[in-house]
């Protein structure tokens, strides 16, 4: 798993999809270029989840959906002590899960 997170930008209509689809949901084109996901955004919603898979050793995880400045939406881990709807965050890519057989990197959100 790379330490970058990429969205798919349609080479025909320019729509950015995250995650990528084999076919552009907007125009049905099948070709894309990678664009890095990141930058600033705002928290659309969040939760503290206690019902976790067994490979997480924390008591709970703070997860959020974030809308980035370019309109792309992403789900990831929220590293904020006082989360609020609409709060401004910036994204980083770091280790998000370590099930033992591989290390998984993905999006985390920090207060902006």
């Amino acid at each position, binding site marked *: *798993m790379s330490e970058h997170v990429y969205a798919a930008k349609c080479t025909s209509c320019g729509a950015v*999809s*995250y*995650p990528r689809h084999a076919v552009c*949901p907007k125009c049905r084109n099948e070709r894309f270029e990678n664009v890095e996901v990141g930058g600033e955004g705002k928290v*659309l*919603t*969040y*939760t*503290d*989840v*206690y*019902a*976790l*898979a*067994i490979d*997480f050793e924390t008591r*709970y*995880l703070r*997860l*959020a*959906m974030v809308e980035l400045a370019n309109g792309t*939406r*992403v*789900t*990831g*881990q929220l590293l904020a002590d006082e989360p609020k*709807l609409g709060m401004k965050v910036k994204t980083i890519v770091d280790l*998000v*899960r370590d099930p033992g057989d591989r290390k*998984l990197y*993905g*999006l985390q959100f920090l207060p902006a």
Partner: protein
Amino acid sequence: MNSVYIAGAGMTKFGRSEWPLMQLASVASLAALHHADLGDIPVDGVVVANMGAARVNKQTALGSALVDQLALYPATAESVENGPASGASAFKVGVQAIASGMADVVLVTGVERMRVVNGLEGTDFVASLSHPEAEYIYGVTLPSLAGMFARLYMDRYGVERKHLAMVAIKNHEHGTKNPYAHIRQTVTMEGILTLPEAAVNNPPIAEPLHLFDCCPVSDGAAALVLVSEAVAKKLKGPKVKVAGIGQATDTHTVHEREDPTDLKSVRLASEKAFKMAGLKPDNVDVAELHDAFTILEIAESEAAGFFPKGEGHKALERGDTKLGGKLPINPSGGLKAKGHPVGATGVAQLVELVWQLRGEAEGRQVEGAKVAYACNFGGFGNNVVATVLQREES
């Protein structure tokens, strides 16, 4: 297409079961077959709904295994895995077989035995339906998707935790009237929300959702016998017709939906089902909704067309959705109290509705029910099957 009728319905008690997977499936199937009382009319096909047996029970090809248990050879056999919508999907496969004229009698059985693994493993197996790269790796589980949905929904529509608790209180009350329900105890607003002890009784699962906002993890099975019109005419019982089925899908990730609080797939599936039935939401006398989380009963009651958007919680406040109200929702106790053996759920919703339409739902009967609706919610709304059933007077 040819008309399809449901001639028999049966289920096991939901809860923790010591029975092996195929025993659960067999007991429910035999209950439905005895209910249908087919005499010497043969079963042409079997469809089994299940989500997790390959992983948690180390068993596959359940359709063939059930034909063998019931000695129905050489009947056709299929297995359907479609996440939490497996039950209604299997039902739809059975309906299509009869509607096309390829079969006259089909047994549809949903089964899940998930308490054989611990809760964390069970939660993880269900979470495997989420998007592997864009959701699952972050620790997304179904409760977390429901928690994020609930927070946004509550903020936007003025739904409070007391409304969520009202769903739990109502469905637990209904569950006490259902001998097949996993949990048969009432809960109170004080016990789960307002007293200091509520913090202990009702701990957070995925804020703002707490324990009593979530369905239990259950084992169980449910079964239906579907028949053609020609067979239905030969049978004695009341006639319950499959009036309409609608299904709709949506994006895999929840964040990609234009409005993450819009259960578009519920709306589209329901519109299709009502159109096929030639009926409207107003015609429905009783409904079973997929309340895996309390917020979903409220949101689905709006998306299905029973209440305007943002007013489902007001209907709940008025008592419209209680037994005895204008539109009883989840008289069985719903997933909340009846339980949620995932692959069995979509079938069990229809089992309850068949009993309601036949006037056989003792202790929780909606008097004179003629039209019934079910919503089986797969994924976190990326695959929904809606069904409308109608009692036909002979």
